[in-house]
């Protein structure tokens, strides 16, 4: 990857280089908005405002077209496991230690695909037999498995490269240990043969036992991705997305889905439980990158309460950005937002100096 100067005209003596300041240039590769324990005060969870500024979209139409109109946010305390990452790549490279991915049978093969997050993917070829098979099994062990204890909304990002909607189904089957029963979610189908589809596999409680203490580690945690196909289809499997839902989570959707209601370049998503107390929570899209920018659209937000941060604990917010184009949800891995947070601390009684 390089940037080459090509078009300077006029007096070269009048040019001077831009400078990089403060930190090294880096590539943003971890979906994690980190909040330190000391930065959220109060006795109760603090009311939160999250402002996500669209960074990756060019203009809502041309490449890289990374505009979105659905943002799923989840909060998770760091004490529940330092190894948690919301995206697990379905790849034969870059797997964290403690995770093995097994492919069953000859219907799934590793392949190079540069646009995918690691550049490598698994390709599953459906048999068309209209029966369920288990082409991919993720096995999490030890501290990594423990870092995934909790309740999650789990999505699959994949691409059914040809055929019609309904040709291929996917569902997730979870087993918390070798001696446990399986919990199987509802299946989801590809609405189109467009790339980067997001399939909602449902809500799962991992590892499946409510009686396990946080320090109990099972012999493994098995996540089985099951497939069904009514026709021979190739499916590119990219990643599984785990949005934690048991502390606080919100799914904000663009109800209008009209041109101009999306979060495109120059606009920002504003999930707000702070500035207008009359309403518990609002999901807005504002213009001009300003906290008070003109409201462009208002999304439906689905959540169990106000946007919130835990008081006095280190925590992370995790996000999944996707786009509904009238037919299906898609989510490109190069979508990216920058985040700002505001909070109103809440106290049970007096406040003192904190």
């Amino acid at each position, binding site marked *: 990857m390089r940037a080459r100067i090509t078009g300077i005209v006029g007096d070269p003596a009048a040019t001077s280089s831009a400078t990089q300041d403060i930190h090294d*240039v880096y590539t943003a590769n971890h979906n994690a908005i980190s909040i*330190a324990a000391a930065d959220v005060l109060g006795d109760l969870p603090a009311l939160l405002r999250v402002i996500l500024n669209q960074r990756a979209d060019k203009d809502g139409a041309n490449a890289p077209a990374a505009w979105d109109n659905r943002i799923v946010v989840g909060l998770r305390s760091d004490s529940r496991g330092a190894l948690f990452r919301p995206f697990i790549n379905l790849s034969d490279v*870059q797997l964290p230690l403690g995770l093995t991915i097994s492919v069953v049978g000859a219907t799934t093969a590793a392949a190079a695909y540069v646009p995918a997050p690691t550049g490598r993917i698994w390709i599953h070829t459906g048999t068309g037999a209209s029966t369920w098979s288990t082409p991919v099994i993720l096995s999490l062990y030890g501290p990594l498995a423990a870092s995934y204890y909790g309740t999650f909304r789990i999505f699959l990002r994949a691409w059914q490269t040809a055929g019609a909607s309904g040709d291929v189904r996917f569902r997730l089957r979870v087993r918390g240990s070798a001696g446990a029963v399986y919990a199987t979610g509802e299946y989801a189908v590809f609405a189109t043969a467009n790339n980067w589809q997001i399939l909602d596999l449902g809500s799962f409680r991992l590892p499946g036992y409510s009686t396990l203490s946080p320090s109990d580690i099972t012999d493994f945690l098995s996540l089985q991705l099951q497939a069904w196909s009514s026709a021979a289809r190739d499916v590119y499997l990219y990643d599984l997305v785990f949005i934690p839902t048991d502390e606080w989570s919100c799914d904000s959707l663009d109800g209008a889905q009209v041109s101009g209601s999306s979060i495109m370049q120059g606009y920002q998503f504003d999930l707000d439980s702070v500035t207008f107390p009359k309403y518990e929570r609002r999901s807005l899209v504002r213009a001009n990158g300003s906290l008070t920018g003109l409201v462009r659209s208002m999304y439906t937000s689905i959540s169990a309460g106000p946007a919130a941060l835990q008081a006095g604990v280190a925590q992370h917010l995790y996000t999944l950005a996707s786009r509904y184009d009238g037919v299906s949800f898609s989510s490109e891995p190069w979508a990216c937002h920058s985040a700002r947070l505001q909070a109103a601390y809440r106290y049970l009684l007096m406040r003192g100096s904190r």
Partner: protein
Amino acid sequence: MPYPLLAITDGIIRISLLAGSDAGLHLADWKPQPPQAKGGGVWQDGQLSDGRRLAVKKWSNVTDTFVISANQVGQNSLIYIMQDLRRLLEKAASYWTTDWQGEPVWIEAVASCETNPRYAIIHDYQLSGESSPYAKPFAGGISAAFGELTLALEHGPWLGQLPGTGTCVRDANYETGYNIGPWAVNSALPASTVIAVFQTSTGRLLACDGTVTWWTDDGGATAWTTSAAVGWPTYCFAQGGANIYLAGATHVDRSTDNGATWGNRNAVYGGYGNCLFYRAVDRYLYLLDDTNKKIYRSIDEAATWALCSGALTNIYALVVLPNGELYVGTKASGVWKSVDGTNWVMLTSLFVGTPMRLFCPGDGYLYMETWDWIVSQYKMFRISPVAGSNWEQITNPDTVNNTSHMLYSSQGVLYLSKAVTGVIYASLAGGGLWKTEATFGAFAGNMAETTLPAATAKNRMYCGADGNIWAAGATITANIGQTATCDDAVFAPNHEHVGQLTHIFKWDAAPTWTSVFPAAAFPFDLFQAAPINGDIIYFGIQSTAGVPLAGPFNNLVFQIGTRFIYPAIGIGAPAVLAWEVWTGAAWAALTVRDGTNEFTNVGAQSVHWAPPTNWVTVAVNGVTGW
């Protein structure tokens, strides 16, 4: 804002309940109420269980009751302030019941010596207790008063910020990650197997193999110097004062010239890797005699040795902590500890397997590798010598082959080397998660980091493996990303990628190459100071061996300090920059979302693209990568 304070306000009108010596409203009594669980919460209960369990708890509003009095110089004045109070409270209620009322009304409160104010939005109210307007104290004098009013305010939880406002919460996306240059042969030695690399207190690096030792004072930049042949297999170093000691299978040698020459001190006892320790507390040497499986102590610089492990037998592992505590692992009786090198106490905490090796890498933990005979695996445990009471099992990245050494680097990375396979693993999570750092193909032994200010090679990692000494990069970057900030500078990408940039090169049309990653100082020019057409900056993740986490990436994040200045700038100016990737035969233009606007926007800016399917790795300035 004078303290103490208790007032009802909408931000413009403020009615104090603490008028003090002035006429107005006077608080007589208030017992602040905390919020209660709605309906007392939802409980799970059963006749067959003791107690009950709270299942759901949500907070209700709080109703605080204020007993106040009101007085004024005249009846109209008193009526006036009561009207203001009621109007404000009506506004408070209508905020919730109407669409048109958009301004909340709240209570402000701070005690006399309390530092911070708090605020509670009023939802509803009840005000009662106004006495007869035709009787005292309202009527009959120059002044008018209501003696005891009861004001009940239902409000939400107390807030730390003015209602409708928030305070910045600093966020970050700062990974304690690392990038380390690929491991490369630092010195191709005519050795069978380099067992150990060791840094002395002067910064000199020592290495040993079966019968020979070497040293270098420049991190191996020029050459390693061969010491006089020791003559017998040697395995590990220790330093005591100015002396360096070298333990072998049958001998312990001493060097009084910083490892340049060696003299045999003893021909009786010997040990293998990680067998020799200098205990600064008593200035004695402690040796695990691998033949007899016992611990010996020397009080005379390795000239003579005496048994100090008492009746303990079959000792497989020894480690001496910086505080002087000694730990040994035995085949049959677990782990024993001594604070004086003479008396031993068995640790009662449990683990699985037979202790085989003990390590004190420097991160505050004691690590132990055991052999689990039942499943035929090596397992790894750790314990805090200070606060820990139980062994905690952690991940052993390779359960088939034994661990040679563990080292915690100055950059916060825990390294682990494996015998036989010659693999080094690295962990940023205390052994919970390991990454394959390097694969040498044959025996990786004791590692060393140049932590002392050597002229050419500080913070390099060294390891002996595969008959050579390997060094890992000249520099280490331990942290990547954005530290906690209120700026719009924390990026949340829609994916996970474990790799990180490893190289950034500038190429001047002159032409010259300059490496700017990691940067030696900030700010630095992204191009040469006076850029010309043809100048290039390359960003890459190395993909060759030694950097196993490489892969294509889809964004770059900058912190532009000074903008790019060139003659024709602004609307209608020609494009100055071309963003390109290598496609196998040529550099191809890439369509990007350029938040830097060709490096003319300052601050936290980023460039994003969809990685093209034909993007392939390429060698740039000798480094192959994405």
